């Protein structure tokens, strides 16, 4: 099996965000960075598959120098080698441009299976994986919460709206995007963290892979306006309950 997993470095979501000077993205200066949560499930699943079937597992990440730290985590989790596409302005690229870069790299490599997160925690477009599959002409299953592989066929469980699940099978080569619930990433072990240091890290300037222009542009990024204060109900308990039920019936779909 020749496997690729694509990861993104995102800010720790507990951070205090500031809009940057251009007003089009957040200011990255004082943020702590980590692996996109959904990508952790993707890496874990890819590593489990590799442990099961053997083969070779590459992790790819686009971004500035600092993304190496996140890539090292993927290597410590069990990926065999890293491909760092160096791009100091990756945050300006839209999902189409990012997917094009990945497809440009992956195209000639003939991966049997590509794993991505279902979306990134910062941009949240949920498009990159799907676009890569489209560009490479691969079958694609999104938001997977279950995965198995047997004899060249993947069987996945997808999570749909309203808690509905769907079972999908596809022959490899294929691409899947991973959702919370797929697995619980195992803890890194100290020896594996140190072993990751010795693994190969291929560095590619983004110009070598970037053959398209972005199709979208973020024109402005801002915090939503603060809404007015909540409604405070007063009175005795029975009265409060009646008022609450009335509001829930009239103003929401919670009670019919």
């Amino acid at each position, binding site marked *: 099996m020749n496997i690729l997993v694509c990861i993104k470095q995102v800010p720790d979501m507990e951070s205090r965000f500031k809009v940057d000077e251009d007003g089009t993205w957040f200011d990255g200066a004082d943020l702590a960075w980590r692996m996109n949560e959904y990508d952790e499930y993707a890496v874990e699943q890819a590593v489990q598959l590799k442990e099961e079937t053997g083969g070779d597992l590459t992790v790819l990440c686009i971004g500035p120098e600092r993304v190496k*730290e996140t890539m*090292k985590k993927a290597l*410590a989790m069990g990926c065999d080698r890293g491909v760092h596409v160096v791009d100091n302005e990756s945050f300006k690229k839209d999902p189409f441009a990012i997917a094009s870069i990945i497809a440009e790299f992956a195209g000639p490599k003939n991966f049997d299976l590509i794993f991505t997160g279902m979306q990134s925690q910062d941009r949240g477009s949920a498009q990159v994986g799907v676009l890569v599959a489209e560009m490479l002409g691969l079958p694609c299953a999104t938001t997977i919460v279950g995965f198995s592989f047997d004899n060249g066929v993947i069987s996945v469980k997808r999570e749909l709206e309203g808690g509905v699940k769907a079972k999908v099978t596809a022959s490899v080569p294929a691409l899947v995007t991973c959702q919370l619930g797929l697995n619980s990433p195992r803890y890194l*072990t*100290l020896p594996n*963290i*140190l072993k990751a*240091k010795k693994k190969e890290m291929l560095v590619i300037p983004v110009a070598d892979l970037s053959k398209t222009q972005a199709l979208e542009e973020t024109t402005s990024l801002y915090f939503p306006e603060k809404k007015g204060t909540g409604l405070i109900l007063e009175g005795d308990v029975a009265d409060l309950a009646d008022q609450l039920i009335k509001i829930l019936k009239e103003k929401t779909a919670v009670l019919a």
Partner: protein
Amino acid sequence: MQFKLTDEQKMMQDMARDFAQKEILPTLKEDERDHRFRPELVKKMADLGFFGCAIPEEYGGNGCGFFESVLLAEQLAKVSGSWRVPLNMQNIGPSVTVNRFGTREQKERFIPAWVKADSFGFFAITEPNSGSDVAGMGTTATDRGDHWELNGQKMWISNAHVGDWGLVYAFTDKSKKYKGMTCFIVNLKDNEGIVTAPIETKLGLHCSPTGEIAFTKARIPKDSILGEVGQGFKICMWQLNNTRVSCAAGALGIGGGAIEAAINYANERTQFGKKIGSYQMVQAQIADIVAEHEAAKLLVYQAAWLKDQGMPNQHQTSIAKLFASEAAVHATSETMKIFGSYGFSTEFPAERFLRDAQSLRVVEGTSNIQKTIIAGIALGDVENR
């Protein structure tokens, strides 16, 4: 000078934090209440390689040193003071000591078992009538030709009643004073002459087992001696200088955990219409404990780093242990005050941090004993080793 953790060290720190949050915290309240030690958790730590620091790879070492072990201890203690103790019991105490003084056979036989937590380690120095005065101990080992016979009582021994193999210090020749002390590698289980019992009246560290050991004509094989006969005191001091830094790292954790809780509370609690953190007196409390904590961190990291470089470090280790323990006690005490009545409640973590922190200035040499070491070296009476 380099004050930055490597990417690998950061990953280890993150992993230990994550481990503590997911494996220790969820059941901590009940575990504390029931004084529950969880052997399976020690096993899990072993599987992740927690106990292979400062050990050669051939005996199960993980390629890391004291520095990394200190990072782990700090993160574990931030959640629970009890749960940094296994690092000393499995790794920095017996394993590192046997690696330094043991024969090849002893290293092969004991170290991998401690590192994998197949054998629970311990070290037994303290007795009912001797603590700080190590050479005042009464336990004896008598040569009976085909075996050693141990007699005496040890007290306040971490892991006593759950321990398998560990180190026992005893006099082989009392007349030679500290030069008559010897270190033995002893199995506490399956020996008719050895009885252990838990001490269940501790103020804190409820998830870390502490107990007593009684030796009554206990037969110990001839080849149980670590190092040489009469080398025990030297080995003991060498060992304590290592376990001390782990304890100091525990102090960073307990102090740091308390400070985090204090800051969150000061940002949430309002009185007189304002956050209590907006009052200068509360700010002064927080400034003091944060400053002391940051200073302690540099001292502890320095001591661990010196050990990994193989440089003299007794002075810096004792300074780190003294300063970090006292800083932790101060931090937890100020945290109690900031929490007000909720600090006095067992529903909130402040009181547990305070109780656990108290142990830090007693174990691995009291604060007074650290001062004796620091002053002795500062005055030129003793060499820094």
